[in-house]
């Protein structure tokens, strides 16, 4: 599954971006360049799906793909998929419907929190229902621990009833997984006298690369989060675990601040001065905002004629490379303007 994701990224980037841009994409780096890559090349489902990926691990997986002749290196730090790679990708896409479950751009900022809450709550409830109050929490991420503590206060009156509901909702969603996939997800859960498996153990048990384990778990989380959000009345118990943040735009805190002042009528220059940031940084924020908020208008930053001219050039050249596009346009058109137009197009 993980190698299919890499192959898909390499295919879609059409040799226009370096391999490290894939790494940043999977890690979910909040830079306007990475966001632009995700959007412009149609890779937004993979944005931020592998936050614990290390550079070494990533490079290692590329060399494996190369050894298996699924990709080759072009002269200049560029990767290309081979014919064998194309076939392998095709097969994987047909065989792994879970690939389509990934929805990184929209849920990457809430998926981890949702999962941590759920894991800890299942462990807590499972133990408390057996009157076992001495157990060591599966993780100690402060925010989720606090949340679970609060949640318990609300649920303790009818813990049993709530747990039955939660079970039924989870069961119905896991039923939509392929059975080995549901096995993997459930084996990760910790409950009363049952400690979940580590990713390493899951990898060994199902004979999968450890990266695939991570991807299967992520795809399941994204699937559950989206199902729950789209059918809120069907999944009231699980809905409670969705962090508030989902209702906000997936912006970095800093970009959100910029957006706040923008809405108050401040100019880019004024915000830069106010926040003691470079103008470039504020412009990056604007691009981030354009990507995530479809109601945001770029008209005050790019004149209509310029916008049309930029779009014509992009079409003619059939590329997403900024440098190439800029070289074919008059000097009066800045990089910022081109990026804004691209952001609007790929919203």
């Amino acid at each position, binding site marked *: 599954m993980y190698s299919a994701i890499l192959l898909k990224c390499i295919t879609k980037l059409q040799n226009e971006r370096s391999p490290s841009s894939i790494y940043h994409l999977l890690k979910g780096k909040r830079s306007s360049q990475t966001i632009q890559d995700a959007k412009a090349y149609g890779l937004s489902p993979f944005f931020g799906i592998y936050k614990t990926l290390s550079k070494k691990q990533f490079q290692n997986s590329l060399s494996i793909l190369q050894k298996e002749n699924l990709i080759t290196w072009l002269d200049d730090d560029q990767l290309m998929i081979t014919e064998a790679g194309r076939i392998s990708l095709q097969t994987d896409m047909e065989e792994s419907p879970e690939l389509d479950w990934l929805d990184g751009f929209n849920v990457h900022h809430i998926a981890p929190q949702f999962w941590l809450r759920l894991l800890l709550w299942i462990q807590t409830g499972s133990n408390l229902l057996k009157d076992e109050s001495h157990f060591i929490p*599966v993780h100690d991420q*402060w925010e989720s621990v606090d949340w679970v503590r609060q949640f318990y206060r609300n649920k303790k009156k009818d813990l049993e009833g709530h747990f*039955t509901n939660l079970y039924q909702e989870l*069961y119905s969603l*896991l039923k939509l997984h392929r059975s080995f996939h*549901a096995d993997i997800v459930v084996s990760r859960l910790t409950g009363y006298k*049952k*400690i979940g498996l*580590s990713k390493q153990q899951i990898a060994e048990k199902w004979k999968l690369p450890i990266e695939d384990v991570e991807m299967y778990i992520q795809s399941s989380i994204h699937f559950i989060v989206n199902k729950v959000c789209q059918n809120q009345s069907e999944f009231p118990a699980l809905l409670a675990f969705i962090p508030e943040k989902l209702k906000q735009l997936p912006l970095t805190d800093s970009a959100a601040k910029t957006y706040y002042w923008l809405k108050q009528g401040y100019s880019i220059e004024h915000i830069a001065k106010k926040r003691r940031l470079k103008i470039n940084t504020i412009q990056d924020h604007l691009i981030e905002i354009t990507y995530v908020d479809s109601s945001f208008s770029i008209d005050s930053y790019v004149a209509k004629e310029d916008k049309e001219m930029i779009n014509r050039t992009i079409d003619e050249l059939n590329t997403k490379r900024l440098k190439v596009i800029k070289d074919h346009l008059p000097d009066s058109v800045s990089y910022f303007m081109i990026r804004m137009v691209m952001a609007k197009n790929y919203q």
Partner: protein
Amino acid sequence: MNKMNQKELLDTLQHQFGFDEFREGQYDIIQDIFCGEDVLGILPTGTGKSLCYQLPAFSFEGVTVVISPLVSLMIDQVKKLKAKGFKRVTAINSLLDHNQRDNIFAHLNEYKLIYCSPEMLQNPFFFKHLKTLTISLFVVDEAHCISQWGHEFRTDYLKLKDSIKKLGNPTVLALSATATPQVQDDIQYFLDKPNMKKRIYYMDRPNIAFSIEHVSNWQEKVNRITDILQHKPVPTMIYFSSRKWCEKVSEILKKELGSLRIAYYHGGMEADDRLLIQQQFMNHQLDVICCTSAFGMGVDKQDIRLVIHFHLPAQMESFIQEAGRAGRDGKESVSLVLYTDGDEQIPLRLIEQELPTEKQTENIFQDINKCKTSSLPLKKVKEELIFKNELTETQWNFLQYQFEKQQMVHNEQFHLDSKLLEDTFQQILFLLRERTTIKIKKLYEFIRWVKTPGCRRKDLYQTFQKGYQSPVYYCCDHCDFSFSKWNPPMNQIEEKVEGWEVELKRIFHQEAIM
């Protein structure tokens, strides 16, 4: 402070900690502390050392500070206490981010029990906060770290004496599982507590038999383990001296012993996964753990039957601790050391890496010498010196402590006087050689034990205590033990292969609903 009577203490023990009775040593030490006496307590691993300060901590008006050398150990203790319902506990360590740390400092007075590393105690900001509190009890855990002759040595332990004075001389409790009389003297000397009450308890374990097998290569070690575990599938720990070996042998054993549930554990794994493995072992979901010395700290699994040393431990003390994880429940258990000629090479290499080498030290002094100013902020060059000379944190801490001790660094400033530099350099070289010699000597002490012709039990404990209890089951392979005679209670392994639907039902207790 008032002495609590025995009934009151027992009530507290039962209600707050859920134990029915005190284990050996606990009651006496706790009584001493309530009487305000400074105590040096030597209690073997697994006998509930931490209860000796935890119980008083929650009865005292003021705060109890516990100095602990390992972050993982602290976090483990805090987790366990919280699981028991004690909320006013915290560990201040390097893993906390700024916000978390500020948050704890702001509410420091709300805690009853504060764990921190000796390095953290030297943090002026933290210490300032600490000084505003009333400290009732100051605990030095793993107190052997204060002595060069202890099996671990941490220079920051040498600074504790001053901290204790600045905190208004609270009652001091120094604890260790293994400390020879020489180390005990050092603890009293370096804490400046010559009148400490000594509470020393025997560390020998009458239910563990000792066995050493001499084989010719590592494959034979693996074969031997496979053979034993095939016939005696018991809860087992296998100790390795490196992460690589730990993973490698665990891989092989999994293939050879298909019916056993085997996993590895070492410090290089993600913290969450480490916790899962540890908990699985405790919860009987695993039979065999291949691990480095990182495992075991704070593990109180009662029914470990067999502890195998695949590699040599660094010295007697760590061997006694690690082997002592077997048979906490008092049932018959075995310690097995597998030895091949030349095995000492690995620990010798580890000894080399622990302190800066003479070459590294020389280079560092040259670097410092090049900064031709009379005074230089430590901060300014520290990172670069560490980076350029590829120092580990422990190596740097050792150097910095020496710089400070020789007054080459004062108030975070280097004083670059050429005479002072030369003296410090020579002093450090001398210490490096001395320290390495001690370590090597301790390693060879263990190797001597491996090769002893006499009774292993007698030989093992004689440096630590006078005499030992007679064995309950078997003594050692030189006296009466062999694996063929050994009949331990064995695991009933029934690995049920069940799909997720059954598992999920069980976790949510929905088994009744079909």
